[in-house]
C-alpha cells in the first residue's frame, strides 16, 4: 500500500480523500494532520452557527467514526511544520515524523488580517473557523457594538449573525458598493437597502487605518479621520492562502501554492488542493471549484486518466435571511456583451443576464433566484441561447387597491424604514395627507430606496377612496406643510402680490402655520427672487449658517472665512488674519478649497469682534450664493497665460458676491486651457483662449461629479460679464430652491438654456433684473458690528448664577 499523507483536515482535502476512497478503496494507507481539534466540518455553515440556525454537531461532515471506518490515521491539534521533499517525510510541531509516497497539502487559508496598528488587540478576529465563531458569540454576551470590516459575502454573513446575537453592527467597506465583485450597482443597492432595514449600518468607502483601545478594542479610525466605536472587530476582507509549510519546504509559492492542471506542485508527488492552491493565477475561495479540484486530484493520484482541471466559473449565493441573491460569471458589460434585464422595483426583483455571442456569460439575480440553477447550467455548459426563454418566471407586477384591502395592518410596506401599512393609513387619516410626498415626509415610507412608493401610493388611493386625486397625489409639493408645488407658489406670489414668508403661509393655508426647515428658506428665497430689491429678507427663515453668517461646526463653534477676491491677498491682510487668529486662540487655521483662509472653532460670542478686527468682508463660505471665484495666476505672471484671469475673477466676485441663488455657486477662471483653476468642474468656469474666453457651465466637483458644458465663446470681458449675469439670473428664476446648476441644466436642457440666452433682448432683460437685485445687498459682517440689536439677538450668550 502506498502511503498518502495529507496536511490539513478541511473541506477540500477531506473531499479529495473521499474521492480517492471511491476510486481506489484499498490502495492507500492514509494519514491526516489537522491543526484544529475537530473532525472535518462545514465551514460554509459557520454563518448559520453565528446566526443561530445550527449547532456545531450539525455542521460536522465527517465524524470521527468515518476516519476509523476508513482506516485513516487522524492527528488533530497537530500541525506539520516541515516537508522533506527529497526524503519524502513530514515533521510536525510535536516532533512526529511520517513518511509519504504521495503528499497532499490542503492547508486552506487564514483570514486576511489588516496589517494596521492595533489589529492584535483583544476583540479583533477573522471569520474563518469555529474558534472565531465562539469568540464572537461570547463577545455578544458581554458587549454591544460590533464592526465588521468588509462588505463582501463573508462580511455580510458575519454582520447578519452578529445582529442575531443582539449586537449593533456597522459594516465598513472600502468600495462604494457592497459585494462589488459579485453584483452590479443596482443589485448592490437593493441588497444594501434590505440589509439596512434589517439593522445593519454601513460605512462605505472607508479605509481603516488603526484599531484603537487599551487591551481590548475600543474603536476604529479611518483614513478620512472619522471614527467608529467598537467592542468587537471582525475582519472579513478576504483570505490569505496558508502556504507557510510549503514555502518553508522549498515548494514554489506565489499567492498560493502553485499547481498545474493536475494539482501537482513544483515538488514530485506533492499536490495541493483547495484555498491554499493557486491554479492559473487564481486562488478559489468557494466550495464548488475546490470540489472540482479534489475530483481531478483524486483521479490523478489513483493513476486514472484524468481530465485536466481548467478552472471554474463560480456562482455565489448570499446566506442571509430575507435576502435572495445569486451571482455568477461576469458582472460588467464591456461592449461585446448585451444584457437581458428584468427590474421589478415594486416587488424588489432584479435579474440580469449578460450575453456574449449567444452565450450566457454572467448572471445576477436579486429577490428571486428560482432560475439560478438552470441559468448557471446554461452558463457553465456554454449553451447557445438562441430561441430559449431566459427567465421562466417573467415579472408580474400585481398590486392595486384590491390587494391593499386584504393587506394586514402590521405588514411592512417600507422595508428600509420599517413603516407598516397601519402606520401609513393612520398618518393619512389623522394628518389629512393627500399626496405621496406628504406621506413620505410624515412616515419616512419611500424615503430610502423608494421601492415601496407605488405601494404607498396605492395605500393612499385606498385610504382616501373617492377623495383621491391621482394627479395631485403625484405632485411634488414643497414640503409636508403644503400641497402646492414650486410653480404654483411662484404664480401665487406674483398674482396675489404676497410679500412675506408669513403672508405666504397664511394666505396659501399652510397646514403647519409657521412652516418648517424645508419651506421657510425656500419661500424666503422665492420672495427675494421675485420682488428683487423690494423684499426685506426674513433672517429667521434662513437656516443656521446663513442666519449667523458663519458655518456652524459640529461642536457648536463656527468658522470665519473672509473674502479674498479671486484668491488674491496681501501681506497686510495676512498679517491681520494672523493677529486675529492668535488673539482669539483659533484652534484651526486652514486654506480652504476655494483659495482663501478659514478660521475654525470660533465661539459664537467672539464672531462680531473678530469680524470687526479683521475688517474684511464675509466670504459667504456658508451661503446659497456665490462662494468663490478661483483663479490661476494668468497673464500677469504666468508664461502660458493668454488672458488676465485674476482681474476677471476679481471683477466677477465683486459683482456677484452676496447674490442669493437657489444653491451655492462656484466659479473658476483660468487663463489658458491648462485650466489650473479647474474651471471645468465649476458652476460657471471661464477658460482663456487666444482672443477670448470660453464659458463652461453646470460643472460640479462635488457629490455629482460632472464636467462643465461649453455655453458660449466670447471675445471680451464685457461679454463675459453680460453672459454670466444673464445665465445666473435665468438660473435664479427657473431653478428649484436647493437645485445646483448641474442638476438644473440637466433638467431643463443645455440647448434650451443656450436658446434663451441667444436672444439679446432676453439677455438684456435678465441683466436688468440681476442688477436691480444686486442693489439690495449690504455687507453682513459690518451690519452685525454696527447693530446692537443684531449682536444681542444672534451672537450673545448669557451666564447667570442659580438663585440670583
Amino acid at each position, binding site marked *: 500500500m502506498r502511503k498518502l499523507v495529507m496536511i490539513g483536515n478541511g473541506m477540500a482535502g477531506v473531499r479529495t480523500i473521499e474521492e480517492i476512497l471511491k476510486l481506489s478503496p484499498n490502495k492507500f494507507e492514509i494519514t491526516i494532520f489537522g491543526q484544529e481539534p475537530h473532525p472535518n466540518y462545514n465551514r460554509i455553515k459557520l454563518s448559520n452557527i453565528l446566526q443561530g440556525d445550527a449547532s456545531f454537531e450539525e455542521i460536522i461532515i465527517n465524524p470521527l467514526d468515518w476516519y476509523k471506518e476508513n482506516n485513516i490515521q487522524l492527528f488533530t491539534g497537530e500541525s506539520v511544520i516541515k516537508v522533506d521533499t527529497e526524503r519524502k517525510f513530514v515533521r510536525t510541531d510535536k516532533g512526529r515524523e511520517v513518511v509519504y509516497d504521495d503528499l497532499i497539502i490542503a492547508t486552506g487559508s487564514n483570514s486576511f488580517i489588516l496589517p494596521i496598528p492595533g489589529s492584535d488587540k483583544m476583540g479583533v478576529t477573522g471569520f474563518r473557523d469555529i474558534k472565531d465563531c465562539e469568540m464572537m458569540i461570547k463577545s455578544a454576551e458581554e458587549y454591544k457594538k460590533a464592526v465588521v470590516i468588509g462588505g463582501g459575502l463573508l462580511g455580510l454573513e458575519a454582520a447578519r449573525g452578529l445582529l442575531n446575537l443582539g449586537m449593533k453592527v456597522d459594516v465598513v467597506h472600502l468600495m462604494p458598493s457592497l459585494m462589488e465583485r459579485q453584483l452590479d450597482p443596482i443589485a448592490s443597492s437593493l441588497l444594501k437597502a434590505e440589509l439596512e432595514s434589517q439593522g445593519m449600518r454601513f460605512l462605505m468607502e472607508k479605509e481603516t487605518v488603526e484599531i484603537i483601545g487599551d487591551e481590548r478594542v475600543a474603536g476604529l479610525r479611518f483614513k478620512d479621520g472619522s471614527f467608529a466605536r467598537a467592542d468587537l472587530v471582525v475582519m472579513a476582507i478576504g483570505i490569505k492562502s496558508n502556504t507557510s509549510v510549503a514555502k518553508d519546504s522549498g515548494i514554489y509559492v506565489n499567492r498560493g501554492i502553485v499547481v498545474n492542471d493536475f494539482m501537482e506542485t513544483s515538488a514530485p508527488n506533492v499536490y495541493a488542493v483547495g484555498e491554499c492552491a493557486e491554479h492559473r493565477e487564481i486562488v478559489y475561495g468557494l466550495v464548488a471549484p475546490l470540489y472540482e479540484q479534489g475530483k481531478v486530484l483524486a483521479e490523478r493520484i489513483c493513476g486514472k486518466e484524468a481530465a485536466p482541471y481548467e478552472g471554474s466559473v463560480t456562482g455565489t449565493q448570499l446566506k442571509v435571511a430575507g435576502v435572495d441573491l445569486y451571482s455568477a460569471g461576469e458582472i460588467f458589460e464591456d461592449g461585446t456583451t448585451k444584457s437581458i434585464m428584468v427590474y421589478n422595483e415594486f416587488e424588489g426583483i432584479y435579474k440580469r443576464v449578460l450575453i456574449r455571442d449567444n452565450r450566457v456569460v454572467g448572471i445576477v439575480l436579486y429577490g428571486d433566484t428560482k432560475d439560478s440553477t438552470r441559468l448557471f447550467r446554461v452558463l457553465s455548459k456554454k449553451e447557445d441561447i438562441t430561441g430559449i426563454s431566459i427567465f421562466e418566471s417573467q415579472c408580474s407586477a400585481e398590486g392595486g387597491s384590491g390587494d391593499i384591502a386584504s393587506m394586514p395592518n402590521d405588514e411592512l410596506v417600507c422595508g428600509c*424604514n420599517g413603516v407598516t401599512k397601519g402606520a401609513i393609513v393612520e398618518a393619512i387619516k389623522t394628518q389629512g395627507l393627500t399626496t405621496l410626498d406628504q406621506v413620505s415626509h410624515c412616515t419616512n415610507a419611500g424615503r430610502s430606496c423608494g421601492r415601496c412608493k407605488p405601494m404607498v401610493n396605492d395605500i393612499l388611493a385606498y385610504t382616501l377612496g373617492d377623495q383621491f386625486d391621482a394627479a395631485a397625489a403625484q405632485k411634488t409639493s414643497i414640503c409636508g406643510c403644503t400641497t402646492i408645488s414650486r410653480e404654483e407658489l411662484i404664480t401665487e406670489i406674483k398674482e396675489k402680490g404676497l410679500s412675506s414668508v408669513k403672508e405666504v403661509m397664511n394666505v396659501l393655508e399652510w397646514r403647519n402655520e*409657521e*412652516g418648517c426647515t424645508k419651506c421657510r428658506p425656500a419661500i424666503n428665497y422665492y420672495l427675494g427672487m421675485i420682488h428683487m430689491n423690494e423684499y426685506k429678507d426674513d433672517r429667521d427663515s434662513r437656516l*443656521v449658517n446663513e442666519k449667523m453668517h458663519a458655518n456652524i461646526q459640529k*461642536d457648536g463653534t463656527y468658522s470665519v472665512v473672509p473674502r479674498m477676491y479671486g484668491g488674491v491677498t496681501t501681506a497686510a491682510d495676512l498679517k491681520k488674519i494672523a493677529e486675529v487668529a492668535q488673539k482669539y486662540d483659533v484652534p484651526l487655521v486652514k486654506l480652504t478649497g476655494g483659495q482663501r483662509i478659514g478660521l475654525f472653532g470660533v465661539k459664537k460670542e467672539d464672531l462680531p469682534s473678530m469680524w470687526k478686527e479683521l475688517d474684511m468682508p464675509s466670504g459667504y463660505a456658508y451661503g446659497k450664493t456665490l462662494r468663490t471665484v478661483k483663479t490661476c495666476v494668468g497673464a500677469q505672471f504666468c508664461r502660458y497665460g493668454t488672458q488676465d484671469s485674476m482681474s476677471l475673477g476679481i471683477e466677477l466676485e465683486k459683482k456677484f458676491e452676496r447674490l442669493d441663488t437657489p444653491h451655492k455657486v462656484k466659479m473658476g477662471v483660468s487663463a489658458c486651457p491648462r485650466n489650473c483653476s479647474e474651471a471645468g468642474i465649476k458652476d460657471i468656469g471661464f477658460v482663456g483662449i487666444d482672443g477670448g474666453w470660453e464659458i463652461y457651465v453646470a460643472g460640479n466637483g462635488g457629490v455629482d461629479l460632472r464636467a462643465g458644458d461649453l455655453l458660449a465663446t466670447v471675445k471680451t470681458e464685457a461679454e463675459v460679464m453680460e453672459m454670466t449675469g444673464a445665465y445666473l439670473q435665468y438660473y435664479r428664476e427657473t431653478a428649484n430652491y436647493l437645485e445646483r446648476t448641474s442638476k438644473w441644466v440637466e433638467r431643463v436642457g443645455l440647448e434650451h438654456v443656450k436658446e434663451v440666452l441667444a436672444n439679446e433682448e432676453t439677455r438684456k432683460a435678465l441683466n436688468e433684473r440681476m442688477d436691480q437685485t444686486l442693489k439690495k445687498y449690504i455687507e453682513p459682517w459690518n451690519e452685525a458690528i454696527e447693530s446692537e440689536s443684531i449682536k444681542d439677538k*444672534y451672537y*450673545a450668550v448669557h*451666564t*447667570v448664577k442659580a438663585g*440670583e
Partner: protein
Amino acid sequence: MITTKTMTLAAHYSDLPVRTGYAVTINDIDIALFKVTNGKVYAIENRSPHPKGGVLTEGLVSGEYVYCPVYDWKISLVDGRVQAPDVGQVKTFQVEVEGDNVYIII
C-alpha cells in the same frame, strides 16, 4: 429623598427675541430659552438629543417646535420630545414669568 429646586432669574421677558433662541448658562447648564409666537416662553437644554449633539439656540422655530440646526430634527419645546420619524428627548425646564422676569426652575 429631598430635592431642592432653585428658581433662577434667567432673563427679562422684554429682552427675549421672538422665534429665536436665547442662550443662557446657569451653573454650567447650557439652556436655550425660546419665546414663541403666542408669547409663551420655553426652556430646554441647549443640546440636541442627536447622538452627535449640537446646540439648539440657532435652530429654526416653528410654532412650539424647534428644528435642530445641525441635523434637522424636529423637537417639541413643550415636552422636549423629538418628532417622528426620529426619536429622542431633550431635557426641559419649568419656566415662570413674573412681570418682566423670566425664572427657570432647576
